[in-house]
């Protein structure tokens, strides 16, 4: 959990919030530190988390989470974390034997038998719907990252449908939160990716947009983050936009106003 980011967002583990849809976007740089932050934040807050990790292995997130003060193995064992390791699930689908339990694999759309992401949605729904009495403070769906689904053959509409269904269940019915990462590149040549990112942006309560510096690489400032808070979806009030720069360290990320990096002061 990155304490400085919590201050900037006005969030705290005691009040994780309800029914919020947060969109993480990164262009030209790696915004995965935000995913690590939200993962450890919601686990600290005592929420039940369903993490759809498509790009990296479990041990990668576990090692980073330990640096941020949370143990993923312990959370998984006590049932607080449901972890879908996309890479492993894909291998099981293609090289493994038939499912003994008869349940379809969450990433079934890769095999081409269906074109929608219903199996993935069913997985999310069953992991977050409380089987026992509500012992957790809330439900959270975390996806890293959505652009991979496009690379694997899902149509942009299918991805948007999936997110829509998840919002109905997680945000509306369960009063939980959703955090989704959409990765883009500087040149923005991937139209499908932009379509998904922009469309989700219109529905988000909070957008964290991470970009590299326009002047290139700098050792002391790794990039810029734009925090866009949607004050109200109904009214015509302007969104609240704040811009900060950041530097990633081993166990922490420091944020500061533009031009005021510690290297200068």
């Amino acid at each position, binding site marked *: 959990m990155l304490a400085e980011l919590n201050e900037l967002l006005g969030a705290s583990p005691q009040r994780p919030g309800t029914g919020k849809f947060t969109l993480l976007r990164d262009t030209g740089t790696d915004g995965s530190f935000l995913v690590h932050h939200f993962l450890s934040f919601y686990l600290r807050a005592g929420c039940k988390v369903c993490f759809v990790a498509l790009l990296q292995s479990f*041990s990668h997130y576990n090692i980073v989470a330990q640096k941020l003060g949370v143990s993923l193995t312990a959370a998984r064992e006590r049932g607080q974390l449901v972890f879908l390791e996309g890479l492993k699930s894909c291998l099981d689908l293609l090289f493994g034997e038939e499912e003994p339990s008869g349940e379809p694999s969450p990433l079934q759309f890769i095999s081409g038998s269906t074109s929608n992401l219903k199996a993935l949605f069913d997985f999310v729904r069953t992991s977050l719907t409380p089987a026992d009495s509500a012992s957790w403070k809330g439900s959270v769906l975390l996806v890293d990252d959505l652009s*991979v689904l496009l690379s694997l053959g899902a149509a942009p509409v299918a991805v948007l449908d999936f997110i829509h269904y998840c919002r109905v269940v997680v945000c509306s019915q369960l009063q939980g939160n959703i955090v989704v990462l959409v990765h883009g590149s500087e040149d923005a040549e991937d*139209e499908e990716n932009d379509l998904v990112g922009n469309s989700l942006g219109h529905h988000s309560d909070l957008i964290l947009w991470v970009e590299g510096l326009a*002047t290139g690489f700098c050792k002391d400032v790794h990039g810029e983050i734009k925090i866009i808070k949607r004050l109200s979806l109904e009214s015509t009030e302007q969104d609240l936009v704040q811009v900060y720069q950041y530097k990633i*360290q081993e166990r922490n990320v420091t944020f500061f106003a533009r031009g005021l990096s510690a290297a*200068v002061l």
Partner: protein
Amino acid sequence: AEGVVCGHDLFVASAMEPPDNILKVKTHRRGKDILIDHNYLEIASPTTSTKFGHYYDISKTMSPELLQSIKWHSFYLPEELSLEPKLKMCNMNCGYANLLHSIQRVIYQEGFDGSHPQKKQKNILRIGIQSLGSLLWGDDICSSDTPEDIHSLTKFLYVLRGLLRKSLSACIITVPSHLIQNKAIMERVTNLSDMVVGLESFIGSERETNPLYKDYHGLLHVHQIPRLNSLICDVSDTKDLAFRLKRKQFTIEVREAVLFHYFEPKRWNTWENRPTPTSLELEDFLVFHFHSSLIFFFLITLAVGARQLLETREEHLSSRLLILTQAERLCMGRRFFTAFHIFNELPCKGYGLSLFSAKASTQRGICSH
């Protein structure tokens, strides 16, 4: 070559030529899709090995005894397709599906994924795949703007990533990116890879005759480096790398821009001692940097160093962006990046601070923004 020297297992896949040729015979190809096939090399001398890697003499081929000391597997697409022409996997291209099955079979049978714990020694599998995405693999992303199946390559890479993550193996792939017209595919490929390095050869381009680049044969671009098991990644200071292919050696060097020599205040402390560019080099500058030629001409005639650059900031505010974008392409030295960071009100250390003097002309001015 590193794999052979370290005693690792090899898996070489190619659709173009039999893998035996890659491992034994030296084929020296130049051109835009080059990748350094340093597979057919020999160690010059064991004593010159550094703590990471070895030196190779690329004018010789590897001795057969050295090759026989390791176990290597080969995948030659025409042969494999004749054995199993109908193999299908999730609507993927046939060649890719075959390759994935082959890699998975080797990983499983040789125990690289821990499936045979009774094996005494753990070893690493190095996989090399040549020219993935080219027409020879049955994929049309290199030949068509709207390919029939744009997901084959990315699906392949995703499954390969899964195989690598769960086994003791590493893979290097060459992709003829200059042939792929659909840029979205290249972005997705980059996203699915851990490390992405681009080689840009000067052959056939205008840079071949440019005196700026006369010592080198091409540029090396590091597009992405892995950020695994950590929040941070190990980014090197310099992004301006060029490579040179000599008779016996392939080297990668940090390129110093010629411009840097003219504007380095330390090198000349009086106006009389300044180096004077020859007219040819100056002209090349102006032609090469078309948009910024006005700016640089101005700087050259006034022998402006970095200090003056900052003092004339107000006048050049409108052209500030031009300098920046061209500078990126120039890959200028560190001091210029420092100056540009100040321009953009970004922090920079050391040299930049002592250079910049605020309007109040204090001894050590600090950027007021």
